[in-house]
């Protein structure tokens, strides 16, 4: 394949198609719109279908409906639209319908500053919908990684029957980089295999790995899907002996596969007592700052989180044992820093925050190394 100059948003759309996404429903919003535009143009070439819905609530609903019908599905949006999608993201979580939601973060709250960059949706990606629920969020730091993590997002969503948030930002989405994409035919995504006969099928049963296989509607496996708490066959229930095992399975299934889900890049030096921890566009700042510091003879560890949720506790805890100080640059008022503080304690964490639409600069990170 040839090297092409492309945007992060374009790479996301192509990653989705490579992963087998065949249905996209969305509503225009900057800075995510290019994802929809590429999908509208490219999906039909692969026999896939695109629809522009009347709003983001409908878009989220439609992709869940599409996956219930058997098509791998995605939507893309930004802050205000992401807020509107939250109720149905919770629906996908409780009904365990795989789907991918791309949030190209822009500066909020509300209409905010269209369309300056931000990483302000970190906590919304975890807790935006009401109630306890499992969720995965991945944050790419380059255009090529936007492609790769979109593929991962589909694989995870299928493998673990959960919505996956691709939590990117205006900088990665609109940045152009030369990339060489793999041959789409080499990309393999998890496929559900069902061994039960239709009359024995239980879409929500307890399995050893916590993830019962999913059969689309229309293939002879008639069953009920509901956002109410339900039993193994999907019927609403208020019986604690049915609800409790179900809650335990659904909220525990990601933990069972945490090592596969947790994607991080560790660039550590022996004897380093300071570390920079970052993700998304701010990881680019972090990477540059570490490069400069090392050139000056300093020893610095660099931890880049590609998986934001579930939070990579094990890796961050291990880093906390190695160093005295963890600098966390991010384009918000310190959202992921809360999690780092929870794991390593407040004393070790130094926040570098900026929530005015401008990137955290390497200089701001380097200054904190001096303190």
């Amino acid at each position: 394949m040839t090297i092409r100059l492309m945007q992060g948003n374009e790479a996301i759309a192509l990653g989705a198609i490579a992963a087998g996404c065949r249905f996209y429903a969305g509503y225009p919003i900057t800075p995510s719109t290019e994802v929809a535009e590429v999908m509208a143009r490219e999906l039909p070439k692969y026999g896939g279908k695109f629809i522009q819905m009347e709003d983001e609530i409908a878009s989220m609903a439609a992709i869940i409906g599409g996956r219930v019908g058997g098509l791998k599905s995605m939507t893309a949006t930004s802050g205000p639209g992401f807020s509107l999608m939250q109720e149905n993201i919770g629906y996908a979580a409780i009904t365990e319908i795989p789907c991918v939601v791309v949030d190209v973060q822009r500066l909020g709250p509300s209409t905010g500053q269209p369309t300056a960059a931000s990483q302000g949706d970190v906590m919304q990606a975890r807790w935006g919908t009401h109630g306890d629920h499992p969720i995965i969020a991945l944050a790419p730091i380059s255009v090529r990684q936007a492609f790769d993590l979109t593929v991962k997002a589909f694989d995870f969503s299928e493998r673990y029957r959960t919505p996956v948030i691709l939590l990117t930002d205006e900088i990665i989405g609109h940045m152009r980089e030369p990339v060489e994409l793999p041959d789409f035919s080499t990309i393999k995504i998890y496929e559900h295999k069902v061994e039960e006969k239709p009359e024995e099928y239980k879409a929500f049963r307890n399995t050893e790995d916590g993830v019962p296989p999913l059969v689309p509607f229309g293939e002879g496996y008639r069953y009920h899907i509901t956002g109410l708490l339900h039993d193994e066959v999907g019927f609403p229930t208020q019986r604690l002996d049915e609800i409790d095992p179900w809650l335990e399975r659904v909220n525990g299934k990601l933990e069972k596969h945490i090592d596969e889900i947790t994607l991080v890049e560790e660039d550590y030096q022996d004897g380093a007592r300071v570390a920079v921890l970052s993700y998304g566009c701010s990881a680019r700042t972090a990477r540059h700052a570490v490069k400069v510091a090392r050139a000056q003879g300093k020893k610095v560890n660099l931890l880049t989180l590609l998986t934001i949720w579930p939070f990579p506790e094990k890796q961050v805890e291990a880093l906390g044992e190695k160093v005295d100080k963890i600098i966390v640059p991010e384009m918000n008022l310190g959202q992921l820093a809360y999690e780092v503080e929870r794991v390593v304690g407040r004393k070790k964490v130094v926040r570098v925050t900026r929530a005015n639409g401008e990137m955290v600069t390497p200089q701001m990170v380097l200054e904190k190394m001096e303190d």
Partner: protein
Amino acid sequence: MTDHILEAHDLENHEALIPPSNWFERSETLQKLRKNKKFPTIWCAGCGLGVVMGALIRAIDHLGLKNDDVALVAGIGCTARMPVYMDFNTLHTTHGRALAFATGLKIARPGMKVIAIMGDGDALAIGGNHFIHAARRNIGITALVVNNSIYGMTGGQYSPTTPLGKVATTAPYGNVEPPFPICELAMAAGATYVARSTVYHALELDKFLTEAIAQDGFSVVEAVSYCHTTYGRLNRLGTAADMMRALKDNSIAKSAYDKLSPDEQHANTKIVRGVLHQNNTRMEYTRMYEQQILTRVQSV
């Protein structure tokens, strides 16, 4: 026997779909109820929703559709609990969003008969935007809207179809918002089959639902019902039986309505029952996408 049924339903022969005399034994009707679902339903005794469910099952039965080829999609509310009792592909979604979920499902499975079952609040308040846009697209979904003029499940708040002046728990001094005419809204937005009947006229509902499900496009059936538990009590309308009888007394067949003079029509306050609109010239959405886009684009 047929005459007896028609008389009881206050219908002319052409207005009803008469089931075969042995329909209960012969048909797959019973098989369309879920054997593994515990009955009774959650509905109050005397509710009209059971009549609508019966009509829907008989309509699907009449069309000879396989259970596997039908999906029932619902939102939230008393009406939206209907799918769980029937043995189809059933999707109980979030409040107001049944048609948006159904749109995704229909696009993924164009061959499937997708029926969205909604109450008046579900379809026209929180879901109003999806309702008009599904109609505009003419996507092949049947919207079955059960109109009881109130939010029943939450205890009797006024809905977008509560008549002016009527009392609700959130309209204790009488409702000051005029109601949406569901069918007229659907017609204006582009639905290609629109009909209205009541839960009193069950066999007419059978007929309209049969036609609506067979329609290749967005079809709407408004089933006028009642909520004796909330609306009826708040407005002193009597028992369920009284409210059922009122649907007979306060409705008029479209054929009779059409014979009225313009002045009489203008003065009419009765519910007009009948097929109010049908257009077979507009192409259904998924078919349009297939023909206009998928077959034109060079595949990779």
